[in-house]
């Protein structure tokens, strides 16, 4: 069932320590990479067709190739460990079980784009995880995998762990850069893109934890080998998290393309006793929900979920039982985006608040029939008109819930005596 590239040694409690990691063949990939031309490393990443695992799914190798080769400015690598999309908890697992893969992946990326300073931006609430990473980073410094002349070469690499302080929007890559610069995490207008003007106005690569942590495997085994796994559009493996009332919630590494129900029933053990599947949010709270019928058709891949009007997102699956109110679920989701909007763009600042207040009113049983039109109207008004995708991320599930559960919404706005 599972296909373990990244998670191969996670059962080994020593794997998170440098000793254990080395015993399991760790840091061989960076040594190999350092013996290759940086461009050849980028080429492997391209060959793998690995798409960024932070949610947007942008091809990683291509992103690296946008970093200018000739520039007087320093270049930066920033690892996105802000993991805050509701339903997503895979990066935390990587940090717990395999911090050195991440450090090694960062080193590979830094070599590929010829950067000498990297940051890991970790969400503030991950205090324990920050300590774990801090320790792993220290180990890597102590043994020459970071610092001056890594692995005995002339290549220097500083890695700085930077803690956030409680703001989902710092997961958006340019919000993250602002935050790293000591400001409010308010995303930037693009262009310019981070590859040309990122951190401190210098060329910057930003990648998710999972994207970077799988790089050692790709370098060791070759991009082509990785691309053989999964589907043509969704190559390789994916860490998929599942939460909600299933028997074995957690994170599993699978080959892309696995049927969603196989994942839910076989890896996650199916619903807990007495619960029936009502809906599935497949990729974090911003992805529209699927009905049980759609779940039967769904595969865990970018293209399959796109086709069903949802998205793979972060592959954080949230399973809703049929006895749970979809109105309540949507109210919680709307509250989240309202709370987390950075507040700079008008449609997002006002729209997320408006959606939440309207949902809250409906959930409280005080909704009116025209509220449903209003919800559609607000969502449509928010999409595609803002600086970052948070506004879209708030509008998609709203539209998805309305589309998928029209009866439940209709009922919720019908006065009790009229039902």
């Amino acid at each position, binding site marked *: 069932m599972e296909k373990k590239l990244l998670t191969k040694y996670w059962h080994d409690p020593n794997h998170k320590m440098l000793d254990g990691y080395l015993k399991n063949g760790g840091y061989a990939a960076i040594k190999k990479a350092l013996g290759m031309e940086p461009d050849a490393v980028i080429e492997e990443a391209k060959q793998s067709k690995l798409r960024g695992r932070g949610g947007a799914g942008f091809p990683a190798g291509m992103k690296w190739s946008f970093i200018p080769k000739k520039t007087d400015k320093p270049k930066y690598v920033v690892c996105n460990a802000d993991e805050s999309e509701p339903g*997503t*908890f895979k990066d935390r697992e990587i940090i717990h079980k395999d911090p050195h893969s991440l450090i090694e992946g960062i080193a590979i990326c830094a070599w590929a784009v010829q950067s000498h300073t990297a940051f890991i931006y970790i969400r503030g*609430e991950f205090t324990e995880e920050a300590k774990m990473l801090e320790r792993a980073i220290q180990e890597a410094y102590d043994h020459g995998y970071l610092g001056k002349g890594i692995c005995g070469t002339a290549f220097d690499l500083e890695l700085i762990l930077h803690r956030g302080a409680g703001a989902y929007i710092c997961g958006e890559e340019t919000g993250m850069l602002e*935050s790293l610069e000591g400001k*409010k995490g308010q995303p930037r207008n693009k262009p310019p893109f981070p590859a040309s003007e990122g951190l401190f106005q210098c060329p910057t690569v930003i990648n998710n934890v999972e994207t970077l942590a799988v790089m050692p495997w790709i370098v060791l085994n070759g991009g082509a080998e990785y691309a053989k796994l999964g589907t043509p559009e969704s190559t390789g493996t994916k860490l998929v998290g599942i939460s*909600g009332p299933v028997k074995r919630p957690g994170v599993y590494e699978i080959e892309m393309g696995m049927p969603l129900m196989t994942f839910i029933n076989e890896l996650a053990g199916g619903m807990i006793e007495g619960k029936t599947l009502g809906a599935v*949010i497949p990729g974090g709270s911003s992805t529209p929900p699927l009905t049980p019928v759609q779940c039967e058709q769904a595969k865990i891949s970018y293209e399959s979920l796109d086709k069903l009007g949802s998205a793979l997102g972060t592959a954080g699956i*949230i399973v809703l039982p049929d006895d749970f109110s979809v109105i*309540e679920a949507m109210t919680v989701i709307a509250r989240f985006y309202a709370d987390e909007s950075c507040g700079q763009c008008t449609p997002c600042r006002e729209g997320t608040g408006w959606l939440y207040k309207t949902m809250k009113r409906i959930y409280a049983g005080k909704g009116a029939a025209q509220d449903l039109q209003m919800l559609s109207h607000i969502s449509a008004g928010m999409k595609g008109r803002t600086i970052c995708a948070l506004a879209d991320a708030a509008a998609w599930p709203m539209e998805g819930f309305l589309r998928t559960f029209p009866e439940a919404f209709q009922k919720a706005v019908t006065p009790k005596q009229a039902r």
Partner: protein
Amino acid sequence: MQLKPETKTKIKALLERYPRRQATLLPVLHLVQEDFGYLSDEVEELVAKELDIPRAAVSEVVTFYTMFYREPIGKYHIMACHNLSCTLMGAEKLIQHLEHRLGVQSKAHLGETTEDGRFTLTRVECLGACGEAPMMQINDKYHLNLTIEKIDKILEELP
């Protein structure tokens, strides 16, 4: 009011690592909040002076991020996740239980603090541990797969 000399030393080290002074603001605020418990106007002023950045820049940042406090909080800050996965697994019941037990109202951003100053009960959004829902964070530590019994035990065992 003054910054602690140890803190000043740490700030100096941070300033050497980052290419711009303001970039140290988040780490510095974490450090300083540890010292003072919360970030008052006076502390914001001190930080602005220490980093030589405008006070407004400090205030904007302090009020933007949920982990910076503008007022004193309890010895134990209970941050109960009320996002979707935790709600599905019974978070609301747990939060109600805590409200009842502690006699305070939970709220987002910063909830109420018990009269003895021991507990603050705040509702927070997803903490990235949904696979082990329902969960909450008490100060730095995550407590996972919670039940009412488990929470009671945890609270009782706190020093």
